[in-house]
């Protein structure tokens, strides 16, 4: 069971990112991650938990989002604020956003996965493949023939 985010008697969990930085996180926040939860159940509770797939800046972002997500429950203003921050990050630094999503996926944080995936889905909606590539800096790895074939097959969707 996830405890409430009241900090009065919360336990502190120590985590280490892939680049060696050590984070001290309240248990209630850390337990949002199913990965960390499983690791703690497997008895790493009193040690430093290593996170070999997450760098410090990204992990910092994850924690920020987790905290804000806990605060935003039943708070429309906060919800909006978090959403616009997410969208801002997606626009200004899509690379970091993709790393954030990967970290959230790796750490198995369902609430954040729902949020970040939904923001991205909303961002993608109605946009052309070309625009998506440009905005997210994705390389077009299709040959011109392959691309033409895909466009032809679903021409109705690309007008």
């Amino acid at each position, binding site marked *: 069971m996830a405890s409430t985010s009241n900090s009065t008697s919360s336990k502190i969990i120590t985590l280490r990112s892939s680049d060696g930085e050590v984070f001290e996180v309240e248990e209630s926040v850390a337990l949002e991650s199913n990965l960390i939860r499983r690791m703690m159940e497997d008895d790493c509770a009193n040690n430093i938990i290593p996170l070999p797939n997450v760098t410090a800046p990204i992990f910092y972002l994850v924690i920020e989002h987790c905290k804000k997500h806990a605060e935003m429950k039943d708070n429309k203003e906060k919800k909006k604020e978090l959403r616009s921050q997410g969208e801002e990050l997606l626009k200004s630094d*899509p*690379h970091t956003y*993709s*790393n954030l*999503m*990967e970290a959230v*996926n790796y750490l198995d944080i369902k609430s954040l*996965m729902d949020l970040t*995936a*939904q923001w*991205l*889905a909303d961002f*993608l*909606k*109605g*946009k*052309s*493949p070309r625009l*998506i*590539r440009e905005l*997210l*800096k*994705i*390389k*077009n*790895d*299709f040959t011109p023939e392959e*691309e033409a074939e*895909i*466009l032809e*097959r*679903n*021409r*109705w*969707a*690309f*007008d």
Partner: protein
Amino acid sequence: MSEEDSTIREATWSDLPPELLDQIFRRLTFPDTRRMSAVCKPWRSALESEPPAGVLSTVPWLMVGDEAEGGGLPKGARRIGGSVRRFFNPVERRWYEIEAADFERSVCHAAVGDWLLQSVCGEGKEEEEEEEEEGEKWEVFFLNPFTKVRIDLPGVHSPFDLGICSVVPTCTDCMVVLIEKGVMELRTTVLKVHQQKNQDPTASYTHQTTFELDILDAVYCGGLFYLYGTSWMGRVLSFNPNNGSLHHLLNMFSALSQPLSINLVESLGRVLVITRGDSGGGWCRAYRLDFSAKSFTQAMEELEGQTMFIGAGTPMSISAIGAPGGTVYFSKCGTFEGGMCEFRRGNESNIAALSPLDHGLYGLPGKHVSRWPVSLADDGMFDDNMDRLHYIRMPRVRVFADSSGEWFATGGIEGVWVQAPLY
């Protein structure tokens, strides 16, 4: 250095693990997934794999006819010559024009899942038509407008009006009933589709049955086809496709307080009759049929938590996820414009809102829709000499070319609910 940096950037979005891509793509509509499949190869592969169970977007699209007016054309004529059909996706509130060569000159008779049951009049298609009436041959086929896959069925000699399919044609036990309406007579043809390994399925005709009934609608439920016909006081019959037998189940028209339309829909394993009327600003009622007791009861509770899409040959009932519950949508059929009824929870008989197609979930932007007739006599189609039963009859399918060689169709089903795949 900066170049290296940028290659890493480029790789990132394409390298997301499949389960993560799935989390993203399952939140998109079908047209968006088509667009995303053209972004890069890893995205395309993720979108070409099977979608995860339970995430199919179930709100159907509405395929509508290309209405044509004037020039001596009969009322309700629609163009069928082109290879493009128009689809409205209510979730995006957006129109799509989908092209498929097989649409040319074809008429739609039914839909099941993302498949359409089409027919094409062979007359004048290859060689100039001869003096024959008998030799007139109609091609019958399933068409998936999204993948353009076509599954041919054996042709028929005369046009049919309505089709009903048990399941999608890619399933082993797909059965299709073709219904042809004559004067006080109905002929059915049953087609069984046989799946073959690595080959197109074949289909064979089994039984042909002729009986007296002017049919309005039919559905498949639990191994039987159910037909609603207005002759002989509005009968519901069951039709067993395996032996061609027909059983009278119940009469119910007298209880239906003069409806303007009567449709069947299968919902959660039950067969419901949905009726519409015009008195008091329009009403809609749902009845549940109990075949073992040969009885029916008004059952508005069947609508709760369900969204229903009503239309001859293409009805469906879905659990109301992503769609309003307790709501019935009607596609256009015969003299009826489409409409929508929304039922207040817990209120058995009142309609909270009833609107033509330019409101509600299925609002069609920019399309003028005439209001429901205030009374039957106000509608030009209604002839005082005709009784009400005739009025609600679904017109027969007719296909013809005008002097310039353009092809038109009248009758049959005009609004078709078809489910778009998610991926």
